[in-house]
Every structure is written in C-alpha cells, then in structure tokens.
C-alpha cells in the first residue's frame, strides 16, 4: 500500500459499508501487532527488537528493515507486517518443498546479519530514505549474491524516489524491464501476464486496481555486470496485500492467486539463479 493515511479513511468507509469484518478478522487472527498502517509500525519495531530466529533452516522470508521518511509516525518497511509474511509462508510451505522458517524475519539493511539471508523482501519502497550505512549494506548484500524483491509502490513520484535510492545503492546499474519470457516467470508456475494486484480495499470493493498514476503494472529488474538478476521490482502492484488478505472472502481470488504464484516464482528463482 502506498498511502496509509488515505487507506485508513477508505478502511473506515469499508467499515461503514459493512465490510468491517475484514478488519475484525485481521485483528482476531493476528492480534494488535498484525494488520497494516500504524499497527505495522509498532509491531515491526517490536519484532525487530525481539527477533529470535532459530538457525539451520533452508529459507527465511526476510523483510528488509530500512529508514523511510515523510511520516514521523509511520515506518514504511513494516506495512502488512507480519501477517503478509506469515500468510505467504503458509502458502509457500504448502505448495513447494522449501524448508522455510514459518515466521517473519525482519532484518535491517545495515545489519551484517542480513548477509545470512540471501533473499530479502522490501515494500513501500517509494518512501525509502536510506541512511548511508543502509546504502552500503544493501549494495554489498546485492553484489555478494543477495536477491531483493521490492513491491507495493505506485506512480511516478514513488518510482522516482525508489529509482533515486537505487542509484545511491547501485550507481550505474540501470533498471531494465523483465520480459514475459524471463525464466523467473516459469521458475515454478508458468506466468503469462503481469497482473496489477490492488490493495485490499480496492480489491474487495471491486474498484480500480491502480493507485495514484500507476495505471500499468510492471515487472522490472536490476542485473549485475554478468547479467544476473539482483533486484526484482514489482511496480504499480501490491503483492503484499494479496498475501495478507488472501483468506478474505471479499478479496478476489485471482489477485491472491497471482500474488502467490509470482511470489513463489521469485523465491524459487532467487534460490537457484
């Protein structure tokens, strides 16, 4: 989700319209830490402080913890956290035979520990405002062989911010379009189109799938000098919400289906290429 504030307003409207069950369900399932918006911020920080992850598993769904800006009360990295992570992991473990750790795993980009997790997921990257240690941490992570998937940022403004941040991280590395015949799209599922996945409110309401001026979804990437994919960019789409609300009967199945499929493909690809 790109705009948490507007989302809060929409959520209120959803409640008024009788779809408050969605929210109630989220609270019931995940407790006060789960969900989105401000709750994500508080839960994320707490989780980061209390992080106690057992070693020895083959895969950890690692969420990049980074410094965001513009909203002093809001930490953009923790959107959808940790429900999206946990819910996606349930699907990942059921559909593949990856030995994935069942719980979330948030790690700061400037924490050397991030190098123990060669797959990392970051969202709301339109509000990234990386510190210099985070820039260096992410650069070295990627050049050493790490794999970053970004998601849930919309429109020209957020793109420019993300692009500028990535230029700080990987100066001189261009962002390229990933074609539909890219091996990532057939690593596990055969995916024939890039779908725009709307946020939970718009998806559940059947409204437009876009936000801001992000009308067309895009799958892009950054490759290293040997052509190896380091960063997968899901722009103008919100996979995180589709994972987070997959169990919601009002959220269209086709979006959560697609989000799981491309999510699994990105992980299988990232673990083999």
């Amino acid at each position, binding site marked *: 989700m790109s705009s948490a504030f507007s989302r809060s307003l929409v959520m209120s409207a959803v409640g008024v319209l009788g779809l408050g069950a969605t929210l109630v369900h989220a609270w019931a399932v995940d407790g006060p830490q789960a969900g989105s918006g401000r709750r994500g911020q508080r839960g994320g920080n707490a989780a980061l402080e209390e992080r106690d992850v057992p*070693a*020895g598993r*083959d*895969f950890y769904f690692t969420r990049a913890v980074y410094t965001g800006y513009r909203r002093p009360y809001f930490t953009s990295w923790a959107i959808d956290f940790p429900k999206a992570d946990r819910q996606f992991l349930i699907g990942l473990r059921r*559909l*593949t*035979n*990856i*030995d994935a750790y069942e719980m979330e795993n948030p790690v700061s980009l400037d924490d*050397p*520990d*991030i*190098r*123990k997790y*060669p797959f990392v997921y970051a969202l709301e990257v339109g509000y990234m405002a990386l510190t210099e240690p985070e820039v260096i941490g992410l650069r*070295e992570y990627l*050049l*050493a*062989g*790490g794999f970053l998937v970004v998601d849930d940022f919309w429109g020209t403004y957020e793109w420019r911010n993300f692009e500028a941040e990535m230029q700080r991280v990987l100066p001189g590395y261009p962002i390229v379009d990933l074609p539909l015949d890219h091996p990532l799209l057939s*690593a*596990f599922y055969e995916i024939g189109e890039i779908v725009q996945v709307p946020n939970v409110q718009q998806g559940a309401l059947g409204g437009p799938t876009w936000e801001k001026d992000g009308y067309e979804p895009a799958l892009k990437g950054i490759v290293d000098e*040997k052509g*190896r994919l380091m960063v997968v960019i899901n722009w103008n789409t919100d996979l995180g919400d589709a994972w987070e609300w997959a169990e919601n009967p009002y959220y269209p199945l086709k979006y959560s289906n697609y989000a799981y499929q491309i999510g699994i493909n990105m*992980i*299988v690809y*990232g*673990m*083999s*290429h």
Partner: protein
Amino acid sequence: MASFLQSVFEFLFKYRPVVFEKGRLALATPWPLSFLLLAGAVIALLAILAYSRAKAKSRNDRFILAGLRVAALALLLFCLARPMLLIPTVIPQRNFLGVLVDDSRSMQIADRDGVPRGDFVQRNFAGPDSALRAALAERFMLRFFRFSAGTERLDEVSSVGATGGATDLAQALDAARRELAAVPLAGLILLTDGADNSESSLTETLLALKANGVPVYTIGLGREEFDRDIEISRAETPRSVLQGSSLVVDLVVEQSGYRRQTVQVNVEDDGRIVSSQEVRLPDEGEAATVRVQFTATEVGPRLFRFSIPPQPGELVTQNNVQEALIVVEDRREKILYFEGEPRFELKFIRRAVEDDENLRVVALQRTAENKFLRLGVDDAEELAAGFPKTREELFGYRAIILGSVEASFFTHDQLRMIEEFVGQRGGGLLVLGGRRALGRGGYQGTPLADVIPIVLPPDDDASVEAFFAEVTVEPTRFGLTHPVTQIAATMDESAERWPELPPVSSVNPIFEVKPGASTLLTGNSADLDDPLVVLAYQRYGRGKALALPIQDAWMWQMHADIPLDDMTHETFWQQLLRFLVSYVPDPVAVTAASDRVDPNEPVAITAEVQDETFLRVNNAEVTAQITSPSGAVSEVTLDWAVDADGEYRAAFVPEEEGLHEIRVGAAKTGEFLGEHATFVEAADLPTEYFDAEMRAPLLRQIAEETGGRFYTPETAATLAEDVSFTESGTTVIEERDLWDMPIIFLLLLLLLGTEWGYRRARGLV
C-alpha cells in the same frame, strides 16, 4: 686393510683364498691311509707312554706335554700324507671370455677423484698391452661387447664413448651368453656401474647363466654414494588436466652433502616459470616428498619441468630436473547436480563455477513433489523425465552432485546405477549435507552407502533428526596439501585462510570416515566433543566419491566478513568440481606406457573400449593414427588382449624426436564408439643420471649367484688369475701342494716350542 689381510693370508697359506674356494682337498700319499693312521696311532701311543714315565710334577703336566707332542706328530703325519688342492683350471687359449663394457652415459660421471668411471675401462682394456687385458689375453680368447639399452659386439674398446641413454644389464648378459653359446665359455666380465634403469628382471637371466655354468665377474665402477648431490627422483603428475586447474605435484627429493639446506624448486611450463618455492632438503639417506603447486593455463600437450638449480660442488646436475608431459584440455565437463529441494547452495554453486570455462553444472531441482526445475540443460529433452532412469542418460555426465534428497526418492535401480556410475563408469560423486541427505535421508543399507566415504549413523538413532552444529572449518594434514583445499596462493596461506572463514552449519552428524577414506576438512565447535567431517574422499572402483556434509558453504560467499572481491568460494568449488571430473574416462580411452621415451624406443599403447553405457566391447575395430612431429601419419591396428575385456594393445616406435599424437578410434560393425588421443614425446632423456651411484649389492648378487666374483678397480688386479680357476669351458685339474705351506711349519714350531717352554717353566728340563 683388506689387501693387507689378503697378503698375510697368501704368505701363510701359500695361495690366495680363491684357490681354496675353487679347489678340492685331496691326499696324494703313496701309502694307504689305514697304514698312515696305524703308524700315527703307534707313534702317539709311544709318545704318551714315554711321557707317562717321564719326570712330572702332576698329572696335568703329563697330559699337556703328551697332547702337545701328539699334535706335533699328527701335523707331521698330515704332511707325510701329501695334502694337495685339486683345482679346475682353464687350458690357455682354449677358452673364450666375454667382456661386457657399459656404454651408457652414467659412465661419464667423474665420481672417483674427478676421473670418469669409463676411464678404468680405457686404461685396462683399450690397448692390447693394457695390464688387465694382457693378463686375460694370456689365458683366454677375449670377445668384447658394448651395452646400454641394447648390446653389440665391439672390436675396439677405445671406441666406447659412454653415450647410451639407458642401462639394461639383463639383456646385455642374455645377449652375450647367447652370442658365445657355441664356444667354450669360461665366463663373462661385466664392467659397469650397475646403475640399471630398465624394467627387465634379472632373475631369469641369472638362472640361465647358472644353468649354463657361466660365471659372471663384475667390476663395479664408481662410488656407492656421491659426496654432494641433489636428485629429484620422481615427479607424480596427472597425464591430463583441465585448463586452469590448480595442480599439486609430489616431487621426491634426495640429497647427499646438502643436509637440511634450503633450496629453490622451480616449475616451468614449456620454458616459462609458473611456480617457485623454497624447500628444505631431507637428512642423508632419506627421501623427502616436496609438494609444489601451480596452475595449468595453456592448452595442449605441455612439457612441465621441475628443477632445483645446481648447488655449489654438486657432482651430477642432470638429475636436478624432472620433466613431465601433461595434456591440458580445454573442454567443458558436464556435471549433474540433483537437489531435492530449493536451497541456496544450488544458486551459489552455479554462480561459483559459471566463469569456469571447463565446468558445466546441469541442475535438476525438485521444487515440489514431482515438480522439477531444470537449469543449464542442452535441450528440451534433457532431464525432462526427472532424474535419469537409464545408463545411457546418466553415464553421459562426468560427475554427479547429490543435494538434500532422500534415498527413497530413487528406485533401487537408480541407486544401483549411481553406484555403477562411480564404480564402473569411473565418474565422480559428491554428496552434500542436508535435512534429507546422508543418514537423515535413509541411505543406510542402500547401494550408495558403500560408495560414500563416510560412516552413516545408525538409521534408528533419533538424535540425528535434531542435530545442528555451526562449525569453523580446518584442513587436515592431508587437506593442507590436497589440490581441492588450496584456497590461497601458497599452501601456508591456505592453511591460515581456512580457520578465518565464517562458520558453516550442518544437520548431519558425521564424525567418522570409512577405512581407506581420507578426511580433507574438519569442523570444530565448542558444542561438539569430536570434530565434524566436513570434506572426505575415497576412491570407489574406477571412480571417486566425496562427501561434504554441510548445508551452507555459500556462507563463504555471502557472509559479511567476506570481502566482495574475495574469490575463496569460487576457488573452492571450482577446484572441488574439477577434482570430481578429473581422470573420468571416456568410453574409448588410450594410454601410452610412458609419456616420454628415447627415440626408437618402442612404446606400448593400450586402449580401453566401451560402449556408451560403459560396457566393455571385445570385437571392435580399433585403430591408432599416429602423427609424428613432421606431420607424417601412420596407422597401427590394436588387437584385443584376450586376457582383459575391452582392452586392446599395440606398440609403435617413434622414429623422430618430438611430440607424437596417438589418436585411437574404435568402431563396432560400422558403428562409431568413440575416439581419444594421447601424446608421447620422443627425446633424449637424462635417465642415466638418476640413481646413478654404483650398485655394489646388485653386482655382488650377479657374481655370487653365477659363481663369479665382485671386484672394484682396487681389487681387480687378481681378476685374470681368478677367472682361470673355473669349471666352465675347457679345463684341466691342477694339483697344488699344501704340505709346504708356511703355516704348517709355523704351527709345528709353535707346538714344539710350547712344549719346550712349558717344561722349562715347570722346571722339568
């Protein structure tokens, strides 16, 4: 000292020891022996009686005096019996004597006061008036031979130039014996240093000489030990390697006079120095194995030269060098990596070797039940049905990596096929650790349990499932010098680098390797009582099997402590996989008995012919196309060796100096089975300068087993006379009187003098 004793012996006994050795004792008395014995008994009795009545102080005096007198009388009686030696002696000029002169290069070595070994031959045999030759010629008709690798008749000893490239004593003795078989032969004289470097066995030669009664008189020329010399006596190198491979070669170094000194060892690739390192020489009489490390970068048959620069005062410098022909191949070896679940290890292994032009990892990853991801395949068909189910499909790969996949995934036939892939096909197998691998994967009791080099925990050990350890890796003594675990420029740096690497984890409790297997890396942790096996290796049948029971070697690439430009992870995997595919045979494989030979020396070539499933083929048409340095091409047909399935043999003689390519092709009923090439270099080899010390024990053995004698230049003066006493050839029995030996008179004098002195001392006079 020996000659002094010999002189004393000759003075006392009148003759030299050899006369007593060769002769037989006889008594030439005109009277019957019984008469002599009776007369002796009567005289002895009279002496005893005379002493029994003589004046004496005690009974003992009578005994001693009577004894001395009886002994003196017995000695006189012995002389009266006229003892003599009967000794077979050649009739002058009725017998032949073969003189074999070593014409090999080692005879040029000037190890006796700066005088070449061959000098003795020239001084004593070159001219008709030479002392030894003249003495022999008085008694025998001499026939001269020169020998090195072959043997030929010689007219003029002065023409011997010591230029032969090898020494073969057995064939020299056989040739001379056969050549002189039709004439009365008194023996053979072998003038040599005994530094035989042939592969011939002397056993049959000596038996034949003994059976024909031909004694061999050997004269050992040269020193049994050099004062100052360094020798690289052996270099253990592979015949072929992949381009860019790091090689660790064992050199066996011996020395005398340079104990514990530090010298430089250089490695040259066709004249270019590719490695140089300092080594410490061993103690006297010890052979030290020195390991040198270098990289084979240039493609093709390359001549690698290992050398120690000549040291001050060194006697023989030609043996400071060993050369080896190594074929550096530029081909891409295909490795099948089967991974039972998505794991980062797959990604990082693929990345580590993607720049290696000579390795190609084809990956099959099971991503879900019965769902596979194929990576790096040649075409749509490759591995389309999952893990190979036929030998044709599986045996096309050179090596297999098994990741975290349980044994029950495979059928029994597939497990057996993997076992045969290693044991029969000669492929490489690497098993990795993981939650579905090794013991946790239920491999106990399967055909693979024998192949892998580690001991699996019992399958009912519940603690295995909960095992997890993070370990710091260290190389073992074997690992310190093994090419797989050389992760830095030098062996010392490599030894330091390993423990600095970030820890890796394992979920497989493997603490023991199989008998005969070697551990290269171990893992230590404060939580473990015993070190974990991290890398182990063993040969299995024709192939090799390795186990790396850890699950995240990728930490050596990703960990924050590893600098971005660090190549340890890439180096380790490239070396490990190159080792895995090294020496993996093709269906048709040819080897030459030796990669470097002297020109005109026959080379045996052997080809193994198998079909694509690596079953041996016996009735194939196998031809070797030999391309000489000048470009001339000749063909040799290889014949099936009836004693070995699929083995074909032939020999060829390189007539030119330089590199010969031997390309063997095989076909069966018109169907092409495959081809393979090897190389042989014909060159003037310095073989003669290795192990070139005079071998007295060997020469002594030849002499003693045939009834001859061993001499050195110092003792050779008596050779002519010694050779005369032989039963071989045309001989007469010569009688040599013994009664007048000075020792008898001295003994008599001693006995009588003692008797007199005793009587005086006892006051009986």
